[in-house]
């Protein structure tokens, strides 16, 4: 059964008196255990789409079916309860945490709110979560400011899997990380997917990152979905001008001495 269906979703922002279409008439689907890479230049509306999906922003029109439910009509306590099934990892590894939080309090919140385990077992569950994302249990006592960027993103992933979701939205989840850490976080995400059958909607402007983890890729440009297809098809044979520009913009590692730039834009 299809996990997520988005139909004809639109959202306009008014900016200085005129309405700007941030997302217009977007439809897409996501299967269980699948990663859909959502790619686009800045201002293409991909982050707005992710935030509408997370119910952080209201949509103007359109329909979202998630796990067979009308996701956009849920509200109040019912919405909060159902949020356990759809989680998110943010780009800003510092901004995504309350500056006063400790690692333990970050992971305790979802366990407490959704009563995932009884209160007495929460510290043990926190240790299990930390271990799952490759951090020692002793990190629980640390303040969130004391851990590095890559470790913070691991904690963000631990927070996201704490409620046993079926879908995680990854909003530029590795863009702020050093390249040496980026690969390890991507590997962790793929491992978790294989182990738990989680679906990912991976939002990024970097096709090289999406190529590593996506089964399918959807390309957005000025609020519209201009191309969707299997990962290899979109990258090796892009059809839309937006996809072509994104493919040619990925820096290639040039190992021979060269004359002139490798970018012909």
């Amino acid at each position: 059964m299809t996990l997520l269906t988005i139909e004809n979703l639109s959202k306009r922002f008014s900016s200085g008196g005129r309405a700007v279409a941030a997302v217009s008439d977007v439809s897409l689907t996501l299967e269980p255990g699948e990663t859909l890479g959502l790619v686009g230049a800045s201002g293409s509306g991909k982050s707005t789409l992710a935030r509408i999906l997370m119910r952080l922003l209201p949509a103007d029109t359109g329909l979202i079916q998630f796990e067979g439910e009308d996701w956009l009509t849920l509200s109040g306590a019912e919405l909060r309860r159902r949020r356990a099934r759809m989680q998110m990892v943010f780009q800003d590894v510092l901004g995504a945490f309350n500056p006063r939080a400790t690692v333990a309090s970050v992971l305790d919140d979802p366990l407490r709110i959704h009563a995932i385990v009884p209160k007495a077992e929460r510290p043990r569950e926190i240790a299990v979560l930390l271990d799952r994302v490759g951090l020692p249990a002793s990190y629980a006592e640390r303040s969130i400011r004391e851990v590095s960027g890559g470790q913070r993103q691991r904690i963000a992933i631990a927070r996201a899997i704490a409620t046993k979701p079926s879908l995680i939205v990854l909003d530029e989840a590795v863009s702020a990380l050093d390249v040496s850490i980026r690969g390890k976080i991507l590997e962790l995400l793929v491992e978790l997917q294989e182990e738990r059958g989680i679906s990912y909607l991976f939002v990024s402007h970097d096709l090289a990152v999406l190529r590593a983890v996506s089964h399918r890729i959807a390309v957005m440009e000025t609020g519209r979905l201009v191309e969707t297809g299997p990962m290899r098809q979109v990258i090796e044979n892009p059809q839309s001008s937006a996809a072509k520009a994104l493919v040619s913009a990925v820096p290639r590692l040039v190992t021979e001495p060269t004359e002139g730039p490798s970018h012909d834009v």
Partner: protein
Amino acid sequence: MRLLRDLVRTQEGAIGLGVLVTLVLIALLAPVLSPGDPLRIAGRALLSPFSDPAFPLGTDRLGRDVLAGVLHGTRTSLAVGLAAALAAIAIGLCVGLTAGFAGGLIDEGLMRVVDAFQIVPSFLLALAFVSVIGASVPVVVLAIALGAWADPARLTRAQVLSIRERDYVASARVIGMHPAEIAFREILPNALPPVLALSAIIVAAAILTEAALSFLGLGDPNVVTWGSMIAEGRNILRSSPSLSIFPGIALVVTVVGVYLFSEGLTKALGGRRLEP
């Protein structure tokens, strides 16, 4: 505790804290340092200062001890200043939080009320309030608070508006946290520091307003205040200036102490936010 350490590390903070601690001690120990009613007639009228060891700062026209007045006046000034500032901050926080969270028409409505209070000079407001209702300590406190709550309300609202757009508030919503918990656990503690820094300035302003009201004879007549002592001495300023000078010095020291404390607090809070 760490805040206190950071505070003492700044020069302003250390001096301000020293002055305030001394003043609070004086206020608390006033009945011990100078027992009895400071308004009672204690000796000969108009003794000049440093002439009689029983009355180090002399006596006023009615023979009341000036030192006793200054010491007991510390109580009134600090109590009225702190209570008024506390009330102003409490009202400001409530209004600012409500406006920032509710948004829409409620926000519009509340902010127009804030505008109205910011347009009217706060001293005039206090003056009118006390003249109509009558002078007693609680009324004076309320009158001062009424003129001072608008600034913290505006600041709190601005803080809430900025913090509620942060990713960590979005994270809290995503994990299904209740809006009330988001407001009080995620937003409020992070919105407080600048409001706290402002509160010291409100205390200083409240102390001055209280003194000004008393000076105009609108303070509580049953308690001794620095303002009423200065007013008392004003009539014989040429022959006995000390009657106005001593409570005046006390007022200046207090206000400067509060300002230094606030300056140190701002620096200490600022330094903490800069840490990675």
